[in-house]
Each structure stands twice: as C-alpha cells, then as structure tokens.
C-alpha cells in the first residue's frame, strides 16, 4: 500500500498570506489564510510594497498555525509546495524564500506551483477531476479558459487581452463610489436591480476564446461621464446590473462554446470572481441545460488559499517535478504542462 502524502502548501502571490496541509492531494487537513484586505482598503487596491511587508510579518505565524491545526510535526510532511508565480514579485518571493528555508531546515523536497494550476486543483479538494476538463479561472488577476487532457496537462485556449474580470469589477465599482474590493458590491446591487442599462458585449473575432474587459469598462465610464455632464442622476444598481449582465453573458457564452467544442467531461470554475452569484447562476443553468457536469469550489477555495497550492503540488510531487534552493518568485511565469 502506498504511503500517504502530506504536502505543506504556501501561497503569498498577492494580498493573502496562506499555508495549508493537504493529504494525498484531495483532503484538507488544515487551511489558514491571513487576509490583508483591511490594510489595503484605505488605498482602494492592493499596494505591492505594503503586501510584501505584511507577508513578512505573517509568514511564520501562518505556517505554524497550519501545522498546529494539522497536528503534524514537520518531519511527518512529504514535501513543501509554494506558489512560484505569477503574482506580485515582492510578495511571491516571501513565500518562496520561507518555503526554501523551511524545506532546507527539515531537508524536505520543494515543489514550485503555478498559481492558476492551484486555482484549478482547488476543485479536487471537493470533487475528483474528470478528463478531458475545461477550467474557467476568473479573478482579480486572471481570466482564462484552460483545457486539460489529463493531470498536469494545460492548454490555455483563451485569456484576457487587457484587464482581468475582477479588475474591471473593481474599476467600475470605484466609479460607482463602492468600497474596495468592488466585486461583491456590484454583484449585490445587480442582484437587487429591476432594470439594467445595456452595455456592449465584447465577443472579439469569431471563434476566439479570448476576453476583453477594458472596452466594457470604458463604456460604463463614458456612460457615467455623459450622464454627469447632462446633470442626470444615474441609479448605480442599473449600471451595476448592466455591467454584470455583459460580463456574465460573454463569460458564460465562451465557456459553454469551449466545453462543447472540446467535448469535455467536466467544467470547473475557480478564482475570486467565480464566487459572484450572477455568474455562478448563469454558468450553472447553462451547463445543466447542456448536461455537462459543472463545479465551483466553495467560497474559501475559490479565493486565494494555500490548500489549492498543496493540491496541485501533490500531483507535481507524484510526477517527480521538484524545485531547488535556487527557486525564485516568477511574476510572469507561464502555465506549462508537467507531463
């Protein structure tokens, strides 16, 4: 019988300092996230230097807490997995150097995980993956459609050409004077609104699975600007609903089309924006109609966490893909296959 694999995951790519222990890539033993949102709120967004400062303050505390909750001693771990990229460089290298020092101190193997692979594997902590699979990763930093033939095999079939969906949400929220982070506020307003302003749907060239949100964002900004010049008051919920309708329609449309074209057996959504109620509902009903199994991890696994990094790291460990003490934070790391 194979020995159980216990992986310590560490994630510091943006504004969450996180550590987790995952058993056999599928079972969360502990999952600790120290969020910095309160600290960045006053600036209306994540300030990279401040994020890095918080990571140094939190990193050993968070790892200790993850081990304490898991009731495991370091020598019982199989390996350490850490987010190598992409993300904020100064933030990434706190996790990477902590992971390297921890691995060195305990003479454990180290695995460098791609953040997006982590988001996709978050799903495996609740639902076994079925291949071929289509993943929609949608967050403040990413909007990507990824096709997977099997474990560790990634093909990016579509990505944003400008802003990530979450970025567009935050910018539109700011023009509506909603607090940061804006996504949940827009979602809530849109949900409560009876009416919606019609904004354009940006489909790009025919057949493309890429996304573009900056044009939509600009038309919302123009609409607000013109209304202000004419001295008209705008109902923010109508704008929120119109903006959200446009995002949801395009994202759902492209995801469904890709799922059919690639004939996948499972579709999963991940990332902070996947927690958006409007998007979730639209995707769920579309895939129910098409009878394609569709999953979204529960909220704490949608947003950035270290369990997802440990989950993806487990598969890399099983495939024998290790890092070295020379691992570095890689802000622009491409998503490449492990096989």
């Amino acid at each position, binding site marked *: 019988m194979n020995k159980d694999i216990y992986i310590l995951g560490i994630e510091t790519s943006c504004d969450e300092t996180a550590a987790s222990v995952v058993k056999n890539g599928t079972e969360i033993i502990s999952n600790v996230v120290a969020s910095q949102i309160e600290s960045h709120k006053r600036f209306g967004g994540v300030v990279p230097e401040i994020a890095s*400062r918080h990571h140094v303050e939190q990193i050993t505390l968070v790892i200790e807490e993850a081990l304490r909750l898991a009731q495991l001693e370091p020598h019982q771990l199989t390996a350490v997995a850490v987010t190598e990229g992409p993300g904020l460089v100064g933030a990434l290298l706190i996790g990477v150097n*902590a992971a390297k020092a921890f691995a060195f101190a305990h003479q454990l193997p180290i695995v460098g995980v791609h953040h997006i692979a982590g988001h996709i594997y978050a799903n495996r902590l609740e639902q076994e993956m079925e291949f071929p699979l289509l993943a929609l990763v949608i967050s403040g930093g990413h909007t990507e459609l990824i096709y997977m033939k099997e474990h560790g095999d990634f093909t990016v079939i579509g990505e944003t050409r400008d802003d990530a969906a979450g970025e567009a949400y935050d910018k539109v929220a700011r023009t509506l004077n909603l607090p940061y982070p804006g996504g949940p506020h827009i979602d809530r307003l849109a949900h409560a609104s009876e009416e919606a302003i019609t904004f354009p749907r940006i489909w790009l060239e025919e057949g493309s699975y890429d996304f573009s949100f900056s044009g939509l964002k600009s038309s919302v900004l123009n609409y607000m600007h013109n209304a202000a010049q004419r001295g008209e008051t705008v109902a923010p919920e109508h704008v929120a609903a119109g903006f959200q309708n446009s995002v949801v329609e395009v994202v759902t449309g492209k995801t469904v089309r890709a799922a059919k074209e690639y004939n996948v057996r499972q579709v999963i959504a991940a990332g902070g924006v996947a927690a958006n109620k409007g998007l979730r509902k639209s995707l769920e009903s579309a895939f129910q109609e098409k009878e394609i199994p569709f999953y979204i991890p529960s909220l704490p696994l949608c947003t950035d966490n270290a369990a997802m990094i440990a989950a993806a790291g487990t598969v890399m460990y099983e495939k024998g893909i290790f890092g070295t003490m020379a691992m*570095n934070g890689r802000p622009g790391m491409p998503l490449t296959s492990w096989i």
Partner: protein
Amino acid sequence: MIYLGIDTSNSPLSLALIEDGRVLIEETSNLKINHSLTAMPAIEEMMKKAKITPAELTHIAVAEGPGSYTGVRIGLTIAKTLAWSLKIPLHLVSSLKVLAANEQGFEGLVCPIMDARRGTAFIGLYEGIGLASVLADQHSDVKEFLLKIKELNRPVLFTGVDVKLHEELITEVLGVQAQWSGVSNRLPRASNLIMLAQKSEESAVHHAVPEYRRITEAEANYNKAQEGKSL
C-alpha cells in the same frame, strides 16, 4: 554553539558560520545578483563546505535593515523561517551597524551609508570605538545629515559600497573632516554581524520584521491626504 549570519540588506551578500568564537567560513560577494535566487543556494553550499547540517545550528543572526526593502525582506524571511523551523534563537542587527563594525577601533566617528536615490540615503553615525550610536539609523537627505555631522567637528570615516556615489557631496560639505574606508572594508561582513548578534538580545521570531526606517510612498501620500482633510 554555531551561529549562521546572513546579510542581504543591500547589493552585497554576506554569509558566515562561527563555531564557539571561531569563524569557520565567511563568504561575501557584490555581484548585484538577485538575493531571492542566490541566498538560499549560497547558504546550502556554504554549510556543505563547512560540514554543518541545519540541525547543528544554534543561532541565526540577520541584518534587519535599513537598506533595500526587498533585500532586507529576503534576509529576514529566510532567517526567521530557519530560526522558527529549527527552534533556535534569532538575533537582529542593524545593517548600518554591521557596516560600521568594519571600522571598529577607528578613533573618531564612523558613518555607514546606503544609497536610497534622489539624494537620500539610509545613514547612521557610530563611535569607532565601542560602536555606540551617535546619530540614529535613519532615512535622510544626504546633505542634511552631513550638515549635522559637520557640527560635531570630529573626524568621520565613511563606509559602505555606496560611499562612492556621495563622495563628491561629502567632500564638499565636510572637507578634511571626512575620511574614507578602503574598498575592502566597504562590504558588509557576516562575521561582524554575528559578533554584534552575540552581544544582542534574542528577538521574538514570529514578530521579527525589517527596520525599514521609512514608510511606504502609498502611506505617505495617504497620510498627507488625511491631514488635508482634517484642516
């Protein structure tokens, strides 16, 4: 007792191992290579050469800053993670004091300097003998700091790899009051860091953070905006 010393606070990297007061190995380079990439492999290599395993370490000493924000964070992150993982004491030492220690014994004042762009520096002032702090480590306009030194009217020895960037201004303000560290004495030495650590209190590992000596630009702007509001 085996101390591991780590200084990544500016462009140079310095590492050392001291066993019971004997320097086993010290390695210092100034190759402007990314510390995030090189510090851990260099530690691993050095310990292998000295035949010391991680479990044999009894103390970690690290330069806490000021200096490059990213640089001090890398050193601090490695040092606190090692100290916490190995359950051994962590000692933090001013990175400017580490530089000043290169000139300990100088009969006069020692001024370590690290450039911080736009005519500013991370700078401090120490007695050459005993290394007592005369002017606290700070982020300062270089000229302003030099004018404070001038008032003291005592010989001052400047040290640090960034001395050359400010040599002209220093000469202009201080004239013959200024003296210069030799180039071999301008790099930080982790053996000196350990020596200073041995005289320092142990730090609470989880709460160990860099001494940036400067708030972030975002916070400075935010504070300014808040002041504007309260007027």
